[in-house]
């Protein structure tokens, strides 16, 4: 589990930021992106997949959330 910050990038897409790993990456897809359900599996541009416990409402961005890595390199 890690604290990650999700923010809106300059081009309008979501950006995933994990300070401890200097990981700043475009979010390609988000499992739930509805007004009443937000979160789930995040697919990053570099192939990593993270999981965020879905929230009951769409949050105001940026937001810091706890995330768990499902797929990705360990370097």
């Amino acid at each position: 589990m890690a604290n990650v910050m999700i923010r809106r990038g300059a081009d309008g897409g979501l950006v995933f930021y994990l300070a401890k790993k200097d990981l700043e990456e475009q979010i390609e897809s988000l499992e739930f992106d509805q007004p009443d359900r937000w979160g789930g599996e995040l697919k990053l541009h570099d192939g990593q997949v993270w999981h965020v416990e879905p929230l009951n409402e769409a949050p105001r961005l940026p937001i810091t959330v706890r995330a768990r890595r499902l797929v990705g390199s360990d370097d």
Partner: protein
Amino acid sequence: MTTLTREETESLIREVLEVYPDKAKKDRAKHLAVNDQSIEQSKKCITSNRKSLPGVMTIRGCAYAGSKGVVWGPIKDMIHISHGPVGCGQYSRAGRRNYYVGVTGVNTFGDMNFTSDFQEKDIVFGGDKKLAKLIEEIETLFPLAKGISVQSECPIGLIGDDIEAVSKKASAAIGKPVVPVRCEGFRGVSQSLGHHIANDAIRDWVIGNRDGQPFESTPYDVAIIGDYNIGGDAWSSRILLEEMGLRVVAQWSGDGTLSEMELTPKVKLNLVHCYRSMNYISRHMEEKYNIPWIEYNFFGPTKIAESLRKIAAHFDDTIKEGAERVIEKYKAEYEAVIAKYRPRLEGKRVMLYVGGLRPRHVIGAYEDLGMEVVGTGYEFAHNDDYDRTIKEMGNATLLYDDVTGFEFEEFVKRVKPDLVGSGIKEKYIFQKMGVPFRQMHSWDYSGPYHGYDGFAIFARDMDMTINNPCWAALKAPWAKAA
């Protein structure tokens, strides 16, 4: 000498690594790379922010340097106590030339060194009492100080002093913020963690101080974040922003004050110059106060114009017109600078090795003068810095992270640049070798280099260094016959 091809650069790196033992070679190879603009992510070609290899000489600082020297030190109306033995504060005192306005020792304290001067008994019995007494003394002697920060040196963490408790008590007693900063030098691999710790201390002890208080705001309020006013840099940046119609509420932290920092959450946009040292607090303000932040670059007219337009895009048409007006106003001035110096500097090649933002930010300024940056590297960058650098650098140029003295010298001998820009520790080696050198941490006692005014000084300095006739007359003492 012509530019190296990709193969030549790769073989150069291999050759330089040849002298290392196998294990060291493997480790260092990850930090040296040939730039390839097609790579999107730097982690595929270069490793950074790792512990320096024991046994090689690198050029890094410590967490205390990052916090006290870089982030907190320039805040002029606070007193920054170097808590621990006397040396750390004394040997770093006033060396960075962050200019400020004020009367030193009365209402500003930037050039002074305050230390708790730890002795053996403080290590044995703890230094908390001494710190409490010291804060009391400061309050008596310097009543105009607006606050105090306690910058921990290594022993504080080792002996387990509770500076937080002392600070809270003292703060209540004197009625001013007293900020404990846990920036012991042994933390992390370089000064970079010191920046982060300092940012976190600002977040916890300063940023929220004026939440809910009234503030007369305008739609054009901005803050300059991460400009340390070296040689007056922040001043030559600030006038451009003000001329285009923005109101600069705060300067972080060069020539900055505590109240400016406390008021920063009231601005509409944060302008980040040094991404490395201040992105943490910008991200925090974005999350907590919904203030967007953008990176900008005020080195050289091309990048300045680009940045002014980028900043203006966040505001209405009056500011957009203001940006165009400012660019137009200085056009004759910077064109004259380019007309004068470009013929003298055209085609010259530069190698850089600095920290923070400069290895990528100054590239544009050199290009405006017709020069080319053929190698660059950072002391303490992270991957996100190299992500931003790859796009700025030409293909097949050298990238070196946390370079060692040996590697840097060998690269310079082979690439034969016309100018090396690096720090004071590298300066005299290259000067003795007869290589023109500029100290690019604090502009070699010159500056400012930011903004249009700074560009004129930058161009003059590069010209007087490169075209100085003395270099041909120099032969390194170690190369002379005995």
